């Protein structure tokens, strides 16, 4: 019982903190939490992830409104509406509405998650290898059309990711296949995931924000709350959009809030109090809704579709976790029941913290921003080196991390998401093609 309590509190507070801090994205949150994840059983790791990411999204918009900084792409709508909010002293109202929108769009999907998972599991079509290939194909398409880079760059990055994922010694039953190991035993384990993800995604993001205090403008939160009705339908629309976009590979959680914001602009195009609050609430609801559905492909097929989830998968795979085959129970309740309970409790904690204590917290963070950011970088570096100390080929691990960090910083204008996605789908893609070649060959 104590472990679930510790997971709930740690994940919620780590997530809230990560959301409040610009530059500490969900991938960096997962990297920083590695020492904890390595000691938890796989089911609690999944709980930690779900709670942490949900909490970070809860407080992410607070960071955007308060500091005017975009930690992640999901905070763009809050940032876009910030000027109007500050000009019209809507800070308190905005915080209240985003908190209510977040809690609504969390609890409804949480209630639907278990029946949804059961439905997916009951439909054998979704467990078929050809269906897995279809998902892989969708991921590849999304990576190629990933808007930050040119299509050619994306194809190159994706291919590079798949290539890197295949390096190492793969056990195939009683035989082994060596790929680009150059007969060096330290390369049998392949290129470490943390080196790829941490070096190409987390390090450049943190480097971008290392001196962010220079551009920050802290908003005054001590303004009276204005009397506007909570935009329920905007929240429902955003929440539903988020549920569907959460299933989109690589970008689902990022585009959910932006899409909901744009859709809401159609219903509320004006720049007045009601319209601005409706757009903001819809975007925030979509943001949190997508964090729940992003778990479905992982729990059913073992496919991670966003980078932070990929870190989780790489940890739980070392703990004999198989998708859909968990027999873990605590106090007579299974994993899914605990997922629903803890997500609900965590949402309530987030609401209380984000709405009630935010003035105190953001005041403190505002004062110590630079030091906290540097401390976070230190913690992440320690966590990554701790993860490195667990592997046998330590020098190789550290070398890979440094090389990938160097590449990430040098080519900071390139978004490496397609490469990371290619790295993660590489194994499943090759396995799926091999199975289908047996089946139809």
């Amino acid at each position, binding site marked *: 019982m104590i472990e679930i309590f510790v997971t709930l509190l740690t994940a919620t507070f780590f997530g809230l903190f990560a959301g409040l801090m610009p530059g500490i994205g969900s991938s960096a949150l997962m990297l920083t939490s590695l020492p904890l994840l390595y000691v938890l059983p796989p089911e609690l790791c999944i709980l930690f992830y779900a709670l942490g990411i949900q909490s970070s999204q809860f407080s992410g918009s607070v960071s955007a409104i308060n500091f005017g900084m975009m930690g992640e792409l999901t905070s763009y709508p809050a940032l876009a509406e910030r000027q109007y909010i500050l000009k019209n002293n809507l800070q308190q109202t905005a915080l209240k509405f985003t908190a209510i929108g977040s809690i609504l769009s969390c609890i409804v999907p949480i209630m639907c998650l278990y029946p949804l998972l059961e439905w997916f599991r009951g439909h054998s079509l979704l467990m078929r290898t050809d269906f897995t290939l279809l998902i892989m194909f969708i991921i590849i398409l999304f990576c190629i059309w990933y808007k930050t880079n040119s299509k050619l760059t994306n194809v190159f990055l994706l291919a590079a990711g798949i290539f890197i994922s295949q390096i190492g010694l793969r056990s195939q*039953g009683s035989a082994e296949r060596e790929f680009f190991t150059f007969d060096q035993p330290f390369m049998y384990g392949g290129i470490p995931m943390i080196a790829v993800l941490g070096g190409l995604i987390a390090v450049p993001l943190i480097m971008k924000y290392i001196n962010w205090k220079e551009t920050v403008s802290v908003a005054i939160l001590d303004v009276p709350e204005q009397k506007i009705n909570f935009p329920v339908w905007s929240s429902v629309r955003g929440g539903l959009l988020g549920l569907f976009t959460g299933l989109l590979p690589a970008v689902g959680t990022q585009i959910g809030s932006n899409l909901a914001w744009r859709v809401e602009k159609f219903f509320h195009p004006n720049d007045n109090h009601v319209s601005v609050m409706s757009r903001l609430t819809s975007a925030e609801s979509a943001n949190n809704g997508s964090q729940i559905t992003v778990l479905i492909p992982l729990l059913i097929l073992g496919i991670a579709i966003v980078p932070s989830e990929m870190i989780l998968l790489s940890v739980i795979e*070392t703990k004999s976790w198989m998708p859909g085959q968990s027999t873990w129970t605590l106090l007579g309740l299974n994993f899914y029941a605990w997922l629903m309970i803890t997500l609900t409790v965590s949402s309530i904690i987030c609401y209380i913290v984000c709405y009630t204590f935010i003035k105190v917290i953001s005041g403190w963070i505002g004062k110590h921003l630079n030091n906290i950011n540097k401390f976070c970088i230190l913690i992440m570096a320690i966590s990554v080196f701790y993860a490195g100390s667990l592997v046998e080929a330590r020098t190789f691990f550290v070398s890979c991390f440094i090389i990938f960090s160097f590449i990430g910083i040098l080519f900071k204008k390139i978004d490496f998401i397609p490469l990371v996605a290619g790295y993660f789908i590489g194994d499943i893609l090759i396995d799926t093609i091999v199975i289908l070649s047996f089946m139809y060959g």
Partner: protein
Amino acid sequence: MKKMKKIIVTLFTFIMLTSTVYSKEKSISFYVGHSNGGISSAFQTAISQELIKKGWDVDFKIIGNCGQVSELLKTSNKPILAGWGADWNSLATNVCYNPPKKQEFITTFVVSPRLLCGPYNDLNFKLVEGKKYKIAVNQGQNHHVLLNALGKKIGVEFHVIEYKNSGFIKRAMQAKEVDAWFTTRGLVDHENKKQKCLYGTLDKKYADIVPLNTLLSTDNVFSSFVAYLLVNKNVQGELKKQLEKDIISIVNSKVYQNALKSSGAFLTKETLEKQLALIEATAKAYKK
């Protein structure tokens, strides 16, 4: 007062020294080369937990790569315990080829028969002469050799599809992607009447399952899953004796035997020579 202080310091030093020596003596690195989700890594995890309960300081890691574990066994200065699959010894050119030597061998810890079973909830499953069946097997283990021979013998055609591990095969069965499977996962569901198994790599007939050695005379009929524990050169003398004693008591315990049974595996008390002979025969069963 001075005397009292001296006694406390002496006692403290003694405790620190003895606990250091004790922990050093019962300290081992336990590396798993098998992939996740399989029966072998699950039982190695269970053994490591039992070793900790018996006072061992275990550095347990699921490396999931037999090549890396093989290299560590050869080069590391640490005392290492590792689980090995008999099927890895089928070819001398394999990176993971490591037939057990008497001085490095501890014990077999899983013997799981491979069974040819039908879909879930189809208790009338049978192989009809002249028909073609899609059958799921573990990849890279040459099961097509045995299944082609069996197909010829009973007059059916098997379309063999190779999957990464038993977990993926189970999913394929649930998805009705294949008509039958030939894995180590069927015995429990067969005994609980949730599916029907027809043939198996058994010594004798068991629960109406026909032993393949009564139909075919090839080495491949012994392709059960056999896994064993071995140590590197740094585990010798008293350390090896203590480890051997503790592990054998773990695998012979009622809890472990029940866990084996509930996953369709078993382990009988055999002499060291017989265990080594079983491993050798199993390695041959995976050859082309």
